[in-house]
């Protein structure tokens, strides 16, 4: 340390360092210098208290994190994926992207099964790929998955739809997955238990309006006319 440092120059250096002591980012040497000076300087002590209170006020969260934050984040993320996929489609190898999204879907489904507590479905069902691009969707739609008697809606999801997006969408539409995906990637959805009497129409409209849903139809209406 420079011998010519007088008391005033140390005071100035300490005053400058106070915010970085308060936010925990000052070095050990700086911290020692500040602590030593604070013991003998009322002005710097008061400034340290002021900055400590300021930091406490600035870092306090306005409210606890809520479900709404998660939904907002998922919706925002979904818009970002749309933008990324729209822009980069030709650039990235499709194989890698599909592999990663297939992994994500496996995880997503595992979480969802736990979340909605539906009956265990055969493991083989979950490892199957989502509908092959170009495969006709309607052909297999007449065979809903087993255990889906409560289901009011059938839907096919986009391969890019993520866990967060799907959770947010189901939450908004007040639906849960009761079975699926079938060989063709069809999910059977039902209203959440408390809402079992509600019409499927508003939920259906929400699904159809969502870019992550490739296809959604009411189960009764899908039955071929005799």
């Amino acid at each position, binding site marked *: 340390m420079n011998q010519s440092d007088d008391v005033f120059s140390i005071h100035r250096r300490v005053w*400058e360092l106070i915010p970085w002591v308060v936010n925990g980012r000052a070095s050990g040497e700086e911290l020692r210098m500040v602590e030593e000076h604070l013991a003998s300087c009322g002005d710097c002590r008061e400034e340290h208290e002021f900055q400590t209170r300021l930091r406490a006020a600035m870092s306090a969260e306005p409210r606890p994190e809520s479900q709404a934050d998660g939904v907002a984040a998922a919706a925002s993320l979904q818009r970002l994926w749309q933008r990324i996929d729209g822009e980069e489609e030709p650039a990235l190898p499709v194989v890698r992207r599909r592999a990663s999204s297939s992994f994500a879907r496996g995880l997503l489904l595992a979480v969802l099964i736990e979340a909605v507590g539906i009956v265990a479905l055969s493991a083989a069902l979950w490892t199957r790929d989502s509908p092959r691009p170009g495969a006709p969707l309607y052909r297999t739609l007449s065979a809903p998955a087993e255990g889906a008697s409560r289901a009011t809606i059938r839907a096919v999801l986009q391969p890019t739809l993520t866990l967060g997006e799907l959770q947010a969408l189901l939450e908004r539409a007040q639906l849960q997955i009761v079975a699926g995906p079938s060989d063709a990637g069809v999910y059977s959805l039902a209203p959440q238990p408390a809402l079992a009497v509600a019409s499927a129409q508003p939920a259906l409209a929400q699904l159809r309006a969502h870019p992550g849903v490739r296809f959604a139809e009411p189960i009764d209406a899908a039955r071929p006319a005799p």
Partner: protein
Amino acid sequence: MRAEAVTPPQPGTKAADNDRELALLRLVAQGDRQAFETLYADYYRRLGRFLARLTQRQELIEEAVNDTFWVVWQKGGEFRGDSLVSTWIMGIAYRCTLKTLRRAGGAATEPLVEEYEDTGTPEVQAQQELRDWVGKGLRHLPLEQRTTLELAYYMGHSCEEIGEIMDCSVGTVKARMFHARVKLRNLLPALGGMTERGKA
């Protein structure tokens, strides 16, 4: 009044956080969507809170968050590890925000006035009241000074990191911090001696 109740420094600035974020970013560079979503989730709320000090318009905040993470997705592979991941991301966020605010015009740089839920213990309410009061003081600071304070006190960055984020010298960071402190001492004198502070 429990103004001394200091919350610990925000995550994202320490070595352990950096190891985790670096591992995620390496995966993102390989096109790993799960890793990207984890990183996005980590930053979404914090970044939104940070940006709310720079603009009151929610749609601009979301635009800046997504612009930031669009760059993270595109350029993750170019990150060389010369700084902390959080510093790199916040630097992108700062540039994206300035661009968004410039395009939106001057009126967009008023900070968001947050609304609080009425519920909570008296202690929580007092803390929120204090936050609100300090927030009003911060509105009087120029954007650069407000950002410097926010990066230090909300995001927990060091002086050097803030220089990297805002693309300016350490001397400039210190000068901005100095002016912000002097101005806030005048705007919020009661914060220095809490006993003097009456309810306005």
